């Protein structure tokens, strides 16, 4: 016990600790029954949307590629079900924008033969580093933690840079969410092999798994397993949001600060989420594309908070039904966690690669509080993990002082929402900061042109 307490690291500056409400932590991952129809968005990742390579009426199998990566920062998309392409249509997705989706009417469960569906653990890694990167690209692996950054890009270390550490993100610092937690409990071996694969691709000998101390069982299981795998260790972390942010996690685990405007590789680190690591294992060892993921379905009034293994493209309504239906008092439905997730406009929206959870918030908690005058309490400054002054950035945004915002490093804001969470006056700090970020981006582009 003392050892554990002794070893609790965290990032040193700012952060908040909202009530955790991990209702679904004890719910083992359940396979969700196949939906009747899936809607697979062609833009589920950061970067260029993929280009559809199937047509309406075409028959598809599970794992068949249906949209191709359209650039270096882009990802392949595979069918998560078998059946017929019913439509390629526009639909509002979890981003709130209208995006193209490939709708497939489900028939049977017919998989591509090349995919190894057996549950056996394949420990031996028989392919070369560059082929690993190719495999992640081919199989459409993107970061499953929320940002959905294509994994092959992160694995391609730029010339002149060197990775020293692979850091696995098992922090899951968003309240309510438990998808990564369950995965670490149930698929620890696969995650370990996945880590070995990533280490090989990056040519590093050290891998540290960061897990917050509110998941003692996961720390236990992962530490036990890590003993059998060379170079992997588990680091227990103090519970502090937003520790799952790459920059905060790197600071907490190896005490290095990613420079402003820089990337983790600038300090020798590459961070992958544990869910992504599991997907990499599946892609490399089992030839299985990213076509399903673990999604937490939870909320205070949800009758059966659950963790589901869900095929990509499944409408959220199906998950809600499986968890006991939409509660009477529902006020808001969020894709992701309560701190950074997006509020959804309907339950028809499909699960995408980055959908880590669906959170149902009761009516009485779903509205924002009345905005009052800034009482200059400085709480927003105190909790900002990036060392920004949110109250000031908001004022600059309101007054259209974007040059000043840029100087005060508005672009460093990781949009964690800690400042808004803490503000006693309910000020919409982040809304203004987001606006300023967009404006500063435009200004920078203009400047680059001239």
């Amino acid at each position, binding site marked *: 016990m003392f050892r554990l307490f002794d070893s609790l690291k965290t990032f040193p500056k700012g952060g908040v600790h*909202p009530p955790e409400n991990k209702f679904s932590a004890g719910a083992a991952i359940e396979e969700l029954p196949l939906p009747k129809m899936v809607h697979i968005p062609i833009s589920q990742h950061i970067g260029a949307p993929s280009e559809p390579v199937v047509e309406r009426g075409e028959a598809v199998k599970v794992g068949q590629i249906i949209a191709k990566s359209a650039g270096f920062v882009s990802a392949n998309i595979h069918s998560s079900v078998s059946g017929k392409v019913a439509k390629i249509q526009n639909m509002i997705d979890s981003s709130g924008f209208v995006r193209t989706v490939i709708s497939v009417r489900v028939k049977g469960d017919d998989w591509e033969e090349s995919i190894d569906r057996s549950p056996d653990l394949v420990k031996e890694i028989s392919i070369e580093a560059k082929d690993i990167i190719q495999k992640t690209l081919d199989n459409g692996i993107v970061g499953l933690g929320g940002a959905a950054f294509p994994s092959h890009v992160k694995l391609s270390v730029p010339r002149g840079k060197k990775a020293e550490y692979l850091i696995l993100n098992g922090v899951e610092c968003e309240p309510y969410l438990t998808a990564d937690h369950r995965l670490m409990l149930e698929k620890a071996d696969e995650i370990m092999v996945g880590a070995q694969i990533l280490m090989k691709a990056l040519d590093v000998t050290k891998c540290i798994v960061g897990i917050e101390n509110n998941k003692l069982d996961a720390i236990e299981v992962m530490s036990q397993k890590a003993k059998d795998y060379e170079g992997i260790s588990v680091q227990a972390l103090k519970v502090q949001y937003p520790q799952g942010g790459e920059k905060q996690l790197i600071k907490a685990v190896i005490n290095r600060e990613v420079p402003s405007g820089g990337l983790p590789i600038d300090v020798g680190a590459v961070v992958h989420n544990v869910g992504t690591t599991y997907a990499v294992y599946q892609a490399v060892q089992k030839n299985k594309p990213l076509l399903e993921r673990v999604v937490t379905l939870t909320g205070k009034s949800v009758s059966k908070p659950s963790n589901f293994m869900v095929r990509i493209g499944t409408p959220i309504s199906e998950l809600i039904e499986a968890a006991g239906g939409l509660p009477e008092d529902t006020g808001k439905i969020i894709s992701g966690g309560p701190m950074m997730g997006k*509020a959804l406009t309907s339950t028809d929206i499909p699960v995408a690669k980055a959908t880590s959870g669906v959170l149902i918030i009761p009516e009485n908690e779903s509205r924002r509080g009345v905005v009052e005058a800034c009482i200059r*309490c*400085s709480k927003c400054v105190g909790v900002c993990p990036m*060392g920004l002054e949110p109250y000031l950035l908001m004022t600059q945004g309101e007054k259209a002082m974007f040059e000043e915002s840029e100087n005060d*490093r508005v672009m460093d804001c990781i949009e964690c*929402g800690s400042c808004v969470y803490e503000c*006693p*006056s309910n000020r919409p700090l*982040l809304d203004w900061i987001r606006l300023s970020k967009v404006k500063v981006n435009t200004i920078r582009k203009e400047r680059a042109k001239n």
Partner: protein
Amino acid sequence: MSTKLLTVSSSPHIHQNQGVSSIMWGVVIAMIPAFAVSVYNFGVGAVYVTALSVAFCIMFEYLIVKYLLKKTPTIMDGSAAITGVLLAFNVPSNLPWWIILIGALVAIGIGKLSFGGLGNNPFNPALVGRVFLLISFPVQMTSWPKAGESLLAIDGETGATPLGLLKDGLKNGDSVSQLMGEIPSHLDFFFGLQGGSTGEISALALLLGLGYMLYKKIITWHIPFTIFGTVLAISTVFWMVNPEQFADPIFHLLTGGLMLGAIFMATDYVTSPMTAKGMIIYAIGIGFITMMIRFFGSYPEGISFAILIMNAFVPLLNKYVKPARFGKEVKNG
């Protein structure tokens, strides 16, 4: 089910539930122990002064906001009540009602609302009121009722505060050790058994309030503890150099309005800096100026002036003292 209207707003979707008024009333709760000691010591006078001051402050806030500024008064946010209590805590408990009325008008009208109200005033309103009264009514403002003398009388016998006794004595050529004989013990100061302004006399009661505000995360340690530290450091140096001319550090920590000022007035959100570093600089300034006034100034007590002076530096501190930032800059863009 599908017709249900959902709320859509941007993240974050949860919020801690300490609002402005809960913070303000939290400060009021933190002042209860000091008020209780005051009532124990000064009797009905303490209740009378505090009640009048709070009532006047709320009244002026309401009238000025409604009829002069023509806005909706938000008197229930607790900020006017805090100003009222603090003003009362800073004056003798036998102050005539009409002086309190003037103090409240100056505090709320000039100190707060003339700058635009909550969040915009550069100086702590209660201190603006107090210093105005101190300059305008020096006699009434410096005749304190003796502690514990009469529970019911408003016009009891008056006496000097320990700092006042010390200052006058030193001026007459007495030494600290001679004067300490006439002054209550350190333990008395700690519990609050001496003369002084209504709410400033018991260090223990004020520290209880501090503990409560720290526990409730209403304030952080930076300002009060840095002031304590600075006062201790400066008074220790002087005391060690010449203990016959300068009183000991604990005496300085426990007497006068130091605790009240450091805990409840220097920490006022609106008039204190926004960053931890800024708070520390500000607090060192307060401690330093307080001690300089106590040692070399013409007033026995200096914390009110010290806070007001440092209030004036806050915009500068906010502008130039930035929080410790994450990540050094590599390139622009």
